[in-house]
């Protein structure tokens, strides 16, 4: 648009990145945290930290779950059993309340009317009911559904931001003629230039990840963003035909026979399924219409044994125990491609090492977005300094930068504190925790907009850092397994969370300290938050 293609792409890169940067930072941060969603949830339920994690055969654990369910909900239309796994050591037995909505309504993740209990897999004893919390699911949902607004709007907003991001990444690559050379260039303590270098390093280092995660993120919701292709190819069919052809036959039509019939033992089915998957264990067992003549048992493989998001499952007749053949679906190249791409995005396949790499790449993404935002302010500042006063635009960007980059981690820490400090019996406890998150964030953002500047950076980083650093202590004092016991017992999901929050808090404190130290530096114009800013939490390698 101006002189050459490179300048016009630089312009596009700047503006497409800046306009949605703050939302993107939150999306990146929440998404990065979601890699350790299960670990966060476990940490937030300290009652489960002591759960026995003795290894028992799956058939034994499953039998315990069935006993409990026969006892609690023999007439329920559907049981869900989640098998214990490394990342979630307890056995979960869930059921939909009888006379609830029909099974079609359940399919889309509506959790209404679903009850569940946690069991010790070895003994079948009910574990003390953990506190109610959304746990890591909160960040997972926040990542693409935002909060306090209709899900559909939120997904369009996040989708639009992601598309801006994709444009920013692609135009950033075009801008960068010396992408390789720049990668090895770092000029510290040089104000704007250091920021630029750091932005380049964090962007280029994880470039394949950034491109992959942005494109595959859009891809997970592409049927909503671009329904035209499917509409064109399926215009004469019922709207669900495409999904039936892609994901498998509509088992949702099934109905109970209303004739009693004993449920066949599930143990042999799980063993048969595991054999069919070359030893991969079962992750989830769903029983439709237990104790009915039309009972079916669907066994889904434990996640983490293949990249694709389409986890294999087998269906058995619940009375005879024999395998129910299903039509082969979704086996084409495009379907497989989609499965792998979605799988790459949600990374449930990842073994600990890959999961950590994804997590670190996610942090690099946060750093890329944050340094990009800061760079804009750093570049703009000299112009305003020349004019003698800070213009409205720069002030706004400064305030939003502080509110997002320093305020969000603070809010995340507050969320974890609320998890431990709100009494367990409180009504609608999960909502109360979430309210604390948004209250803290709101206050941080308002304060930042009111007084953007170095002291505000320091204050918010300091508070966020302290809140994170003290989390392991809080964990030990409020009933969780503290670092001493969690490491000693190999309870790595909990230990990992504590260690990551310690590191993160230390990093925030360092940033706050660094800002104070450089107060009189000549390049004081910039906001020398040195490296990647926050946003992530919890981790584990178990």
């Amino acid at each position: 648009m101006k002189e050459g293609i490179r300048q016009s792409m630089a312009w596009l890169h700047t503006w497409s990145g800046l306009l949605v940067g703050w939302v993107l930072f939150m999306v990146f941060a929440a998404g990065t945290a979601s890699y350790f969603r299960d670990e966060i949830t476990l940490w937030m339920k300290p009652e489960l930290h002591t759960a026995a994690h003795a290894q028992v055969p799956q058939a034994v654990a499953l039998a315990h779950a069935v006993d409990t369910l026969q006892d609690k909900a023999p007439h329920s239309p559907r049981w869900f059993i989640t098998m214990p796994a490394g990342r979630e050591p307890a056995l979960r037995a869930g059921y939909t309340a009888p006379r609830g909505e029909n099974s079609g309504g359940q399919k889309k993740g509506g959790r209404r009317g679903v009850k569940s209990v946690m069991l010790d897999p070895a003994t079948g004893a009910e574990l003390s009911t953990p506190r109610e919390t959304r746990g890591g699911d909160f960040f997972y949902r926040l990542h693409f559904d935002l909060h306090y607004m209709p899900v559909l709007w939120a997904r369009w907003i996040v989708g639009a931001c992601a598309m801006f991001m994709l444009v920013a990444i692609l135009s950033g690559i075009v801008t960068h003629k010396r992408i390789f050379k720049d990668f090895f260039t770092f000029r510290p303590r040089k104000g704007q230039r250091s920021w630029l270098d750091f932005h380049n390093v964090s962007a280029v280092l994880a470039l394949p990840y950034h491109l992959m995660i942005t494109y595959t993120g859009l891809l997970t919701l592409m049927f909503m963003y671009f329904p035209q292709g499917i509409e064109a190819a399926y215009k004469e069919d019922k709207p669900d035909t495409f999904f039936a052809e892609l994901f498998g036959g509509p088992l949702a039509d099934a109905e109970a026979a209303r004739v009693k019939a004993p449920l066949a033992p599930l143990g042999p089915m799980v063993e048969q399924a595991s054999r069919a998957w070359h030893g991969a264990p079962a992750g989830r067992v769903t029983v439709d219409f237990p104790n009915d003549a039309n009972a079916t048992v669907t066994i889904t493989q434990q996640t983490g044994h293949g990249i694709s998001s389409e986890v294999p499952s087998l269906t058995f007749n619940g009375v005879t125990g024999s395998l129910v053949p299903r039509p082969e679906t979704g086996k084409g190249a495009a379907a497989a491609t989609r499965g792998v791409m979605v799988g790459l995005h949600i990374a449930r396949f990842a073994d600990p090492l890959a999961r950590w790499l994804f997590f670190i790449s996610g942090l690099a993404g946060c750093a890329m977005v944050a340094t990009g935002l800061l760079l804009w302010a750093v570049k703009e500042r000299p112009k305003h300094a020349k004019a003698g006063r800070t213009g409205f635009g720069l002030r706004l960007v400064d305030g939003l930068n502080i509110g997002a980059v320093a305020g969000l981690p603070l809010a995340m820490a507050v969320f974890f504190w609320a998890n431990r400090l709100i009494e367990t019996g409180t009504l609608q406890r999960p909502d109360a925790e979430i309210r604390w998150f948004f209250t803290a964030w709101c206050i941080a953002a308002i304060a930042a907009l009111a007084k953007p500047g170095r002291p505000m950076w320091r204050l918010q980083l300091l508070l966020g850092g302290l809140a994170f650093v003290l989390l392991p202590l809080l964990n030990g004092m409020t009933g969780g397994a503290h670092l001493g016991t969690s490491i000693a017992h190999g309870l790595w999901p909990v230990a990992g969370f504590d260690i990551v929050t310690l590191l993160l808090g230390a990093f925030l404190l360092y940033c706050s300290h660094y800002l104070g130290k450089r107060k009189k530096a000549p390049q004081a114009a910039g906001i020398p938050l040195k490296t990647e800013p926050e946003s992530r939490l919890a981790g584990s390698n178990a």
Partner: protein
Amino acid sequence: MQAQPTMAPVPAKPKKPGPGWRYRAGVAVRALAAIAGGYALSAAWAAALALTLPAVRVEAALTATMLALAIYPCAAMWCFGARTAPRAVAGLLIAGALPAAILLLSKGAA
């Protein structure tokens, strides 16, 4: 001596401060073309490819939709990379002619 004040400031001023309305209008047109036009173009390609790709229709529809996600950012970059705003719009129209023709033909055939 006296010539200096008369010569310099007055005519130079309108040129200096910020971009003119022409520039702003250009940016607005490009942004609109990139966001709305880019979406329309990608959607048209998604529909046209879903109908014409030589594969089972699930596969064709999936491939077309995944490609649309890649077409959109490229279209947006084109809109800002083109030398002038009218050129940007013209480029989108040219790129949209083929899928539009396919969709019209398929409608006629059906």
